């Protein structure tokens, strides 16, 4: 898994950074550990507004614009999928 330097200068994986962001931002995720393959929308962890916040986080931290057609359940519905999407986008940029 790709490691990147986060805002504190620590080497972490993208998935860990997304996990931290979700854990710090969304009330349901604050109370419990969210698994990498746990469905975020179906389990009520994040709603559609929350996904917009994740998109803003991605664009501000990983240096690319998320295209409208990429905002799908396939790319965003688990932390694992979000991480994979970011890695593909960074490599493709």
């Amino acid at each position, binding site marked *: 898994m790709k490691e990147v330097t986060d805002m504190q200068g620590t080497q972490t994986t993208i998935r860990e950074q997304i996990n931290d962001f979700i854990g710090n931002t969304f009330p349901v995720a604050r109370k419990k550990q969210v698994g990498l393959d746990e469905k975020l*929308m*179906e389990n*009520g962890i994040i*709603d*559609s*507004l929350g*996904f*917009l*916040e994740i*998109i*803003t986080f991605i664009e501000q931290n990983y240096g690319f614009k998320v295209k*409208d*057609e990429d*905002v*799908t*359940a*396939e790319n*965003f*519905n688990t932390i694992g999928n979000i991480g994979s999407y970011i890695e593909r986008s960074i490599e493709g940029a």
Partner: protein
Amino acid sequence: MSGLIVDTEKTHAIAFNRGILEYDVEAELEHMTESIRTIVYEKLRRRGAVIAISGGIDSSVTAAVLTRALGADRIIALSLPEHESSPANMDYGRLIAEHLGVELIVEPIGKVLESLGCYRRREEAVRRVFSEFTPEYRFKIVLPQNLMETGRINFYNLVIQSPDGNIQTRRLPSRELLEIIAATNFKQRTRKQFEYYYADRYGYAVAGTPNRLEYDQGFFVKGGDGLADFKPIAHLYKTQVYAMARYLDLPEEILNQKPSTDTYSMAQSQQEFYFSLPYHELDLIMWALNHGIPTGHAAREMGYTEEQVERVYNDIKQKRRTTEYLQKKPLLVSPVPEISND
């Protein structure tokens, strides 16, 4: 509920077809008028009803049913236009009031909204997305309309139209989306203030006007159009509201209108803003979901793929989850058993 198909949810497969929403309108009207009298006079102990008339089909049918139940002299209809209201809708409001013989009071709310900063706050948010935006521009927010075709997550696009007609569209960031929605909600909440003013003034009950799609899917503003003492048509699918309107012989102009929000400066349909599907399709799919119809069966009857129906089922459930907060009554930290919350 006489006249309507009633079944417990998700217990067994039952017949489903495109005609499933047909019903005995007269029988249902009898039931509704009896219920309304019981609710207004006995349960709420009010003397009549106040209703805000938008000129649309839902408030028109609600007003017609209230008139049938309580009599025209016990109804106060309010027209509450603001700076962005469609003049045509105001005309339809006058038309339905005259048709029913109910008193119509017009209370413009534009200046109240100005003083609350409704328009200014929204314009500032739009300008953060489109720096060229000025008050001479028009705008609206819309959802993607291909709900059945993709696994796309719902997000709003901001659409602006310049004075010379040029249209631009951008995805709306969360901060600006929340600001626009919060500021726009001043409209519905200000209208509700006037409804309750007249309700208090005359000892009347406030009638809400959501249909079943709107009520079920959280298409209302908490403390705004979601606030009411009773909601006469909340159990009727929109298709059934139209059937009732035809049965009640409401004016053709009102029947032929496309459902709109009349909330933004650019014309915006309810489908664009919230539902992403024509209401008659969404009604049927929601009925199928509510009655435990397997996706394959629903798909075959409606001419869709199973995957398409599955996407709509999921969208309906997702909207219910997201808007659960809007439906909740105030929560008490500790119970107060002497006071019923029903």
